[in-house]
């Protein structure tokens, strides 16, 4: 869906710069939404033992920490991969390119 969506946006945007910018913004928003869905699933498994009548403070703090640590983990993995890539290339192209 991603590539089809992007190519559709591109073909539409070629005639209207406003539409092009709009499509790019919507695609980016959708990426964020999917990431939030993914994190909610992961953090639900880690933080929600037995669903009760309300979201207790401990579970809420766990969810917030879970999101923060997920992002920290992503950044750590990317940084380490880039460092390793410099010392001992595993991929034919640089990740950041």
């Amino acid at each position, binding site marked *: *869906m991603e590539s*089809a*969506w992007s190519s*559709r946006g591109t073909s*539409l945007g070629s*005639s*209207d710069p*406003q*539409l092009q910018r*709009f*499509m790019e913004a*919507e695609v980016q*928003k*959708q990426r*964020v*939404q*999917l*990431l*939030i*869905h993914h*994190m*909610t*699933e992961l*953090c*639900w498994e880690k*933080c*929600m033992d*037995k*669903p*009760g*009548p*309300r*979201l207790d403070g401990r579970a*809420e703090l766990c*969810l*917030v920490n*879970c*999101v*923060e640590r997920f*992002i920290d983990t992503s950044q750590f993995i990317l940084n380490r991969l880039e460092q390793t890539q410099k010392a001992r290339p595993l991929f034919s192209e640089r990740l950041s390119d």
Partner: protein
Amino acid sequence: MDSGFGSDFGGTGGGKLDPGAIMEQVKVQIAVANAQELLQRMTDKCFRKCIGKPGGSLDNSEQKCIAMCMDRYMDAWNTVSRAYNSRLQRERANM
């Protein structure tokens, strides 16, 4: 979603495309897709949490559990969204 989107555009063939109408349509399609994502994941999570050995029907305790699970999953989604957006803003402020 994609095919529906395509056919909508096909329907306007011949006439000039109205960017405003297209934008509105795209927003609605994305909102529907987002709601469907949430519903699918919530259904899966709550089924796993609340249903042990599936019986002949959903009994009272299963229904109560599912109701609470749905509410808590929505709470979790809201908390995750706020935490993520808050993090993004902090990262931007530090740039």
